């Protein structure tokens, strides 16, 4: 099956290839990249290759526009990190930055051209109350859509609802675990905290070890319910892997760490996608599922359909089926059964109500 976005993925892995695209190819590529949230990433990659002069001016204007936007968001995120450091240092406990926040703080390649919509931090459960108080005093408010949402987060997921700053309107997610407590896979945040590195220049902000950054990103992708950004998340992962693929002992360390954190399944799924879609060179031993885990092999094509669901040119008739499966699965993985069905029914009902409202 020909990949509808072959040029896009090729541009992500071999940015110099953008110089040889025809205007017609650019017409499709730019639309796909916009839908995937990857325009800024392509722009950053083109800038790194220093071959902007070889791109059509019209294309570069579109790319550069989004890159400026993403860079501004990164600046805003760095400022938020400064303020969070000030607000939370009194708790005297490590505050772990996850995903985008960590990439920006580290100035990692994965932050290049990446849009940051919210900041994710992880604190031990014991400090969650105090963290909420300190954040509230600094102008953050929990931001549930309604009472149902509030209960979903606090009582069922044992999470704080997302927080929004009163005047700056930035979004903050405070976690105490990598996955909700109710999830079917038990994860151990204290192990991630134990290997974390303190950020120089900050009092209480930490970033995960590079192996944990990869594993957390993989877990987040595989547990995702909405797949509009699946390709972008894979692109982030590709950039997380890139500096290490030829490092001696890297794959063994990664596998071992995945076992320690009980995240072998997400790692496997992600490696298969990176290998087949991005051509990442993965040692065969790693790509095979671990023995005795009973990994359902259907998930690989389903996830692939999810990753490629972002634009009409890459969707097939199977895509909506895959989207439904992934949506239900993401909730199934997060929620115990007695909560799952009522929750899905409620969400479906709410969507219909709001659709009807907009039609009238």
């Amino acid at each position, binding site marked *: 099956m020909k990949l509808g976005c072959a040029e896009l993925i090729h541009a992500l892995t071999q940015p110099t290839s953008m110089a040889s695209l025809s205007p017609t190819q650019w017409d499709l590529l730019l639309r796909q990249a916009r839908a995937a949230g990857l325009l800024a990433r392509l722009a950053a990659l083109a800038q790194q290759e220093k071959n902007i002069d070889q791109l059509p001016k019209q294309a570069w204007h579109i790319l550069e526009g989004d890159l400026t936007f993403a860079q501004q968001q990164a*600046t*805003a995120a*760095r400022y938020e990190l400064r303020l969070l450091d000030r607000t939370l240092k009194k708790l005297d406990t490590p505050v772990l930055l996850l995903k985008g926040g960590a990439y920006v703080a580290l100035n990692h390649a994965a932050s290049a051209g990446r849009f940051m919509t919210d900041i994710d931090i992880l604190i031990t459960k014991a400090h969650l109350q105090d963290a909420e108080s300190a954040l509230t005093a600094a102008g953050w408010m929990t931001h549930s859509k309604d009472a149902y949402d509030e209960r979903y987060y606090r009582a069922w997921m044992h999470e704080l609802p997302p927080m929004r700053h009163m005047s700056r309107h930035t979004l903050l997610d405070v976690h105490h675990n990598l996955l909700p407590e109710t999830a079917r896979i038990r994860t151990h945040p204290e192990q991630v905290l134990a290997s974390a590195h303190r950020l120089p220049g900050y009092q209480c902000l930490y970033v995960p070890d590079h192996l944990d950054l990869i594993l957390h990103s993989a877990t987040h992708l595989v547990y995702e319910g909405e797949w509009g950004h699946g390709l972008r998340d894979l692109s982030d992962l590709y950039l997380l892997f890139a500096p290490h693929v030829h490092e001696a002992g890297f794959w063994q360390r990664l596998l071992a760490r995945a076992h320690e954190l009980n995240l072998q399944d997400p790692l496997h799924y992600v490696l298969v996608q990176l290998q087949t879609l991005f051509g990442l060179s993965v040692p065969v031993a790693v790509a095979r599922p671990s023995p005795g885990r009973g990994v359902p092999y259907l998930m690989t094509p389903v996830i692939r359909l999810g990753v490629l669901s972002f634009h009409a040119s890459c969707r097939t008739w199977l895509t909506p089926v895959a989207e439904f499966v992934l949506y239900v699965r993401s909730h199934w993985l997060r929620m115990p059964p007695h909560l799952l069905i009522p929750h899905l029914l409620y969400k479906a009902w709410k969507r219909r109500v709001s659709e009807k409202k907009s039609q009238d």
Partner: protein
Amino acid sequence: MRTLHWRIPPDASLIWHCWPGEHEYVLYHGAANQTHQLAETAGMFLAFLASGESDPDHFQRMLRDEGVEQPEEVLVHILEALHQLDVIEPIDAA
């Protein structure tokens, strides 16, 4: 009691401008990506700090010499407003 000294935070990335014949400044706070309109005296205080000065008492004397009325009050307002905007910080800030 020692007066608090002030500075512009090293990563603030401030740009400010006042047009000839006018009395208000526009200020861009790069770190926070915010833009503000400032009274003339507040703009002058930023220029004062940017030149390497840090003692607000010295600035207050300058205000008095310029004929500004109630310079102590003016200074208090300037310090409060600029600190609130996070474009100045006390020098002992860790």
